[in-house]
């Protein structure tokens, strides 16, 4: 079966991203397909490569990047939410005249249409948030 995932909260502050990660891992283990993971609202904060959590804590962002690499996951960050909150790839940084960018490996920035498309193309859409 094909799942779409929506994550509405940033890492650490809420469990949403952790729960979604565990869900996606379990779904992949069961042979399901993940059509897309869409990061919206503060969820875009899951996509910064600048985070350095303490050594004894999980690194949520690195976990997503690794899972994406292993399973070729499509991790999409909402562009409007990301610009509002300071998550940028090189391209958006240039366009906005910003002197740095911070998007982590394995994520891409795109529009809200990608979320709707995930709703249409997936057999189920599961939302994680606060």
């Amino acid at each position, binding site marked *: *079966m094909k*799942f779409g995932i929506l994550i*509405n909260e940033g890492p650490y502050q809420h*469990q*949403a991203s952790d*729960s979604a990660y*565990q*869900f996606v*891992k*379990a*779904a992949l*283990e*069961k042979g*399901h397909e993940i059509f897309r993971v869409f990061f919206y609202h503060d969820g875009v904060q899951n996509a910064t490569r600048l985070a350095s959590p303490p050594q004894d804590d999980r690194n949520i962002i690195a976990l997503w990047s690794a899972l994406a690499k292993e399973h070729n996951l499509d991790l999409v960050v909402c562009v409007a939410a990301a610009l509002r909150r300071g998550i940028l790839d090189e391209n958006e940084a240039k366009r906005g005249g910003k002197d740095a960018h911070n998007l982590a490996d394995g994520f891409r920035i795109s529009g809200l249409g990608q979320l709707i498309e995930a709703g249409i193309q997936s057999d*189920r*859409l*599961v*939302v*994680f*948030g*606060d």
Partner: protein
Amino acid sequence: MLHTVNKSPFERNSLNTCLGLVKPGSAVLLIEDGVVGAIKGTAIEDQLIQAMQSCKLYVLGPDLAARGLAEDKLLDGIQVVDYGGFVDLVAEHTSVQSWL
């Protein structure tokens, strides 16, 4: 239809709103902070017993364990699932409503 509730029923009205809108035959899965509602002897016990007459109630085991709530404390009739069981529940129902 699968409903998920991730908020404590003692601090938020998410579970209450959910139970007001579930149709008979639906399933409700408690996850994250929502799991605290699943144990015996709470102020919402009667409401859950009532709900289980028409719906199935599940609780995510890993979230329960994290909050120090042993499975022997669970209200009778609530089934424990792991993340794999969460995936199965989503697959078995045609839609999912997350009461955030």
